[in-house]
């Protein structure tokens, strides 16, 4: 349970709730289902649901991170283009 919970918390910190809402909500749902299965003493199914929650949380986390990173790269690229055009402009007499 803990491993999946940690992965979900990490994904949330990385902004997955907004940037990768589908896998993030899925991870949360799987975790809740796992808790319900434990309550019903269905430990085998609970273990599978925890693994699924972990996999979904990792997908959510990495999706959020790659999205943020791509956005950052695009911004850096834009700023460099601006910088290049400014510095290449001949100085006013």
């Amino acid at each position, binding site marked *: 349970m803990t491993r999946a919970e940690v992965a979900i918390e990490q994904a949330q910190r990385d902004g997955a709730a907004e940037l990768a809402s589908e896998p993030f909500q899925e991870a949360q749902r799987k975790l809740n289902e796992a808790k319900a299965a434990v309550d019903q003493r269905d430990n085998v199914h609970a273990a599978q649901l925890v*693994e699924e929650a972990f*996999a979904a949380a990792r*997908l959510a986390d*990495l999706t959020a991170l*790659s999205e943020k*990173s791509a956005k950052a790269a695009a911004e850096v690229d834009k700023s460099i283009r601006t*910088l290049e055009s400014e*510095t290449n402009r001949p100085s006013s007499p």
Partner: protein
Amino acid sequence: MSTSIKLGTLSILVAVAATLTLVGCAAAPRQDAQLDAAREAVATAHRDPQVTGDALIELSKADTALNAADALLLAGKPLADVEYQAYLADRFARAAQEHGKLLASEKTIAELDNRRNAVLLAARERETRRAIAGAASSAQETAMATGRAERAEQELAELQAKHTDRGVVVTLGDVLFATGRSELQEGSQRSISRLTAFLNEHPQRTVRIEGFTDSVGSDAYNQNLSEQRAASVAGALARDGVDRSRIQMRGYGKSYPVASNDSAAGRQQNRRVEVIISDNDQSVPERTR
């Protein structure tokens, strides 16, 4: 007889049909849509060139889960167990691709940072070069301008210029002219050159040329001679590059003597051309005394 043959044939047919049915079952494996989708996701992740380095951790998990799913399916295990592994394979395969994208963006950002540093460095170097070149050329210009101005001032000083409230006054003696003539003598060029050097160095200043004579001869003669001598000097300055619009001239005849006309020495002093250079860009005021 015929009945027994028929029964025998029927039993053979039934046996063949049963065999065919069994063979048919073995040839058509069990299928699961979720597993098919997972298989496709894993294959896509394997083809993705960005899935390298740490992203291979997720891809390895996806492979393991896919293999488990295939084995469970082949062993005829419950579809729920197959689909559990298929789920893991699918999510880890997609996570591997996201991880690959993340690594690629991080690499791009690192490269862009290097490029930005290079751009900034190049810009700083260019600025430095410009500043050095600018300082050198302005120092050179200043030195040259200072040198020119100093030389021009010196030239003027050699003409024994006097500073008055009308401006700088240079008196050119009658030695520049033959007696009774208004053409400049050949030796006068040095004085003219000194004047034009100064005027060219101070293009905003204007100049007034005034001609004077001694009291010998008629007023009309002296007036005319004084005007012609002033005009001669003005023409010489213009030929040396001083714009005509900067030059005024006037003849005063025998008026405004600077010495007594009773002696030869006094009369020589009175025969003169005065060149007045303005202190600013205004015309030199008319003479009043």
